[in-house]
């Protein structure tokens, strides 16, 4: 009986806490989860075209400065092995290298909207967000997804934000992971991101599986993190154009 009372009390405290959080506090907690100072990840990227053909790419990801600088190294299949994408300054500078031509290409400044290696993620989708700065937000309410309560947040991008008309986030009220994002271009729902298989690594709740569904083309891309190390000491030289050709 005592245990039951304790659980009830905890639930009450928790739910009152959840209800009392302001939008800024909610998004701060989201950022706290997302802004990992540095990391190394092993990811499988599966691209499923609208015709149902799938292509699996293996990627080794390096991230520094809380995700502002990112390096993706493609490790398989043979066709893309050694291809590298370097994103610096929060996605303002994007470089692409392929060993088949041994050329480093600087992508145009507005390439943020481009698909990353043909996936349904654009470069801007993978950029680390500063929610307060990149969006004007509004707390719409709460909704249940798979039995868990979520905050629903409407986000209108500011000048520094991504190039969408609006986004809607579903933030898990228990771990503050963004479980779902809807991306709108004009009035049309363009893409939907689903995050699942959430694990706690050190102090961070991380979704190990991200699925981006493209509602316009019918294709989808899965990003499944096989391994992740956080707070890793990474040399700055790794995040330079010289590194692309050198390694």
């Amino acid at each position, binding site marked *: 009986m005592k245990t039951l009372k304790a659980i009830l009390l905890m639930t009450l405290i928790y739910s009152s806490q959840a209800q009392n959080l302001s939008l800024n506090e909610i998004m701060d907690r989201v950022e706290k989860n997302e802004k990992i100072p540095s990391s190394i990840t092993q990811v499988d990227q599966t*691209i499923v*075209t*609208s*015709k149902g*053909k799938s*292509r699996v*790419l293996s990627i080794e990801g390096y991230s520094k400065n809380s995700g502002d600088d990112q390096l993706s190294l493609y490790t398989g299949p*043979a*066709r*893309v092995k050694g*291809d590298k994408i370097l994103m610096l300054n929060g996605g303002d500078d994007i470089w692409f290298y*392929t060993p*088949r*031509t041994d*050329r480093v*290409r600087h*992508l*145009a400044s*507005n*390439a943020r*909207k*481009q*698909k990353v*290696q*043909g*996936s349904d993620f654009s470069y801007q989708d993978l950029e680390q967000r500063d929610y307060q700065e990149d969006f004007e937000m509004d707390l719409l309410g709460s909704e249940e997804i798979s039995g868990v309560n979520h905050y629903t947040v409407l986000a209108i991008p500011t000048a520094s934000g991504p190039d969408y008309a609006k986004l809607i986030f579903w933030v898990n009220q228990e771990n503050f992971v963004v479980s779902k994002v809807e991306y709108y271009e004009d009035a*049309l729902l363009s893409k939907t991101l689903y995050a699942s298989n959430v694990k706690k690594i050190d102090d961070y709740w991380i979704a190990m599986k991200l699925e981006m569904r*493209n*509602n*316009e*083309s*019918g*294709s989808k891309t899965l990003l499944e993190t096989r391994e992740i190390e956080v707070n890793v000491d990474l040399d700055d030289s790794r995040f330079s154009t010289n590194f692309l050709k050198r390694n």
Partner: protein
Amino acid sequence: MKSKLLAWFAHVSVKYNKAVLIIGLGFTIACGVISEQLVIKANMKDLMPQSHPTVKGYNEMTENFEAASNVIITALGKTEDLKKFADEVAPKIEKLDQYVYRVSYKVNRDFLRKHALMLIKTKNLKTAVSSYEHLGLKEYINGINDNFEETYIVDDEGISSSERENNAITSLDGIKVWLKTMHDFLTARDTTEENARIAVDNMLLGEEYLMSPKKDMVLITAFPKFTTDDIDRSTLLINEINEIIYATADKYDGIEKVGIAGSMALIVEENKALSEDSNFTSLLAFILIIVTFIISFRMWSSPLLAGISLIVGIIWTTGFATLLVGHLNIMTSIFGVILIGLGIDFNIHVISGYLENRSAGMNNTDALKTTFAKAGGGILVGAFTTSLAFFSLMVTQNAGMKEFGLISGAGVLFTMLASFTVLPAMLAFQDISRRRKILKLKKKLATLPYQNPEFEKLKVRLEKKTRKQEKLKTPSFQLLGVLSEKIKKQPVLYLSLALALTVLTILRGKEIEFNYDFMSLEPPGLTSVAMQDSLIEKFNTSPDIVFVSANTMEQSRVIAEEAKDVPRIGLTSSISDFVPSEKQHKERVPYLSQIRKYLDENKADTLTENEVDELIEQLYRLEDNVIELAQMAFTGGQDRLDEKAEEIIGDPDVPANERMRMVEELTQLIQDDPQRAVKAFNLFQRHYEPHLRATAISMSATGRITLDSIPEDILSQYISKDGSQFLVTMFPKEQIWNLNFLESFSAQMQQIDQQITGTPIIYYILIMLIGKDGSIAAILTLIVVLLLLTLDFKSLKASMLTMIPLILGTIWMVGIMKMVGIKLNLLNVMGLPLIIGIAIDYGVHIMHRFKIEGIGRLKSIFNSTGKAVVLTSITTFLAFGALGFSSHRGLASLGMTLAIGIVTILLATLVVLPALLSITNKKSNNQI
């Protein structure tokens, strides 16, 4: 009232049997003559409400624009043979000028030679300028590289849209031919001027024939002078074209397959299949049912009369359908089989009762009167319930169900009318003639002395005939009575079993899937479907086009520009592709002037041995560009582009030393003998340079392109016949039969313009309509049936009891469909309201008898009426089973669905109904 009417029918049919038969025959002949006009319309559009704006728009546009209706001739095989095939076939089809306006199979290069550069997007034109700065081989390849990198690698749009992907494929094709020609000159395989000209034309103007990127499929498009609504001429045209293409294809070893794609070919093939199916399944159903009847009744004359009555009822219905509707669609094409299955039931009830009464010693008038008195009410209510259930389909919006409801509802009434008039008249006529013959024999026998040799013969004949008269026996189903008795004793047990089955089938049935792929419902092996699949695979676009008309050319430009950015559109075309706007013209003129200046001022420098390394460097740069483009295409799933690139850079999955690399091979040859290379390339340059310069000068004309300067073959594709409207055509990127694709494609089309129409949009609306209509029809049928039964039984309780087995049986039907792997589709979804209207009769007949005889005679009710119910369900099952043998897989699935439904509802009626009657009558201690 009802019994008086039935008694009157019996009386008239017996007393005036000859008159009834003569009137019936006359009416049948008249209906038969009218029915000659009935046609089958297999077009999906014909299932739609014809007043729907999308259908109206579609009809208007196919009438107004030549290009909105087409026949696409496709051939697969080797490139050179495909081109020869197209060259031979196109003029032959063009000669069919009573059917076609014209035939298109080549790009109009004359027009492109004059205006190609003016038609390039300003952004791309800007990057193309440098390609014309120097026409020497080394510099020209450098220019190609600059242009390529700017357009596909550096530009943020890359190969993101279908239009850009298609442009990239065309560019790669030009590069491939250019490298091959360099190789030809280097190896002295072909050093002619003509070869150099081909390289230039391919580089500047692209492929001349309408070929797939891999050059293994060619298209020839014929534009008919009529729409698919003119099924007779459509059939003649398709047959003529088939004769031409098959005869021509035989001449070329490199042609692997030919056929016609597009809606006209599909409709012609569908029509043929539906017509054959309709005849075959009707005949099969008829034979099966009559044979079953003969076996059950152990006699042939009565089943034959039942068959004649049934045919008469169907002919009346056909005449009615011709007068009121004028055509059959995919759904109504099966009305014959449906009526065979249902109409025979009325005859079974009549004959069964009549024979029973005649065996009991009644004369034929009394036998018929008694039959009509006992079974007539059930037949009448059953027929009206079924026909009203069908008629209720007329409230639906889609024409398929609406017309089906009308024709089948009327058909049920017509076949019932024949059962109440023609059949009893025939039975009476047969009986009277037989009795007259006996009487005549008796009289003759009485006059003959028994010593007469004729006497014995006549005596034997008389005995035989009399025996036949007395032998009128009906089949017995004692088991049904025994079963009902058992159920009566343990109703809860049987109801529990039924409930368990219901729970199980609900669990399975709710998982049933819907197959939206209309093509998978077509008869297997249709050439048009196979060629359409190949076309989509090879060209990445579906021939199921959508289109919209614009009042002005500028309006068509706005629509086309918007459509080009839509990811689900594979290709967009409009007249604005050929007529730049004033703004575009102004923007482009400076670049064209610059190109012209380069072409006028610069001469092509000959290649020297010192420049060979630079040439090799440019060639490798070109290869690198193609590799990067291929990487982008590979990761983005743009396989056609990746495959095209592989033709130049080789398959990356093959080891580098075994890989065919055009550039590597070429540079190897250059390095082996630089002197020879310089000589060969200078010869190549001497041949190509004047042609390249002349073509480029012509292409860079700065004059305004106006509608007047557009050649007729292009103009007629985009301008309405009266010249007032402009057509914008959009090709979906994929097969339209995937609902997810179709849903978002339709939404994207609506965003572009509300007026857009075409097969994909019509199909999407049809799916939505049928989904909605199916539910409305099923609910409405249930309500109509319940109301009718309540009116007839004057008891809500009785009507509810009758309906419970029906509802349970329908649930079991859906569950079993899932278990045996039948998916719902656009045709068999109609089975749900149909089965309710059809199978309600089983409960109705039993309940009618039950009301007369009560719970105490449950065994005899099931022995007698149960027998008739089982027999009628067997015949209905056989009819729907026969439909299951249709080559049209959609109709076959409808047949299977209904056949399953007949079995499950019969089972529910035989098991659940006696249990319910037993429980309710014990509790209330009242008769219903």
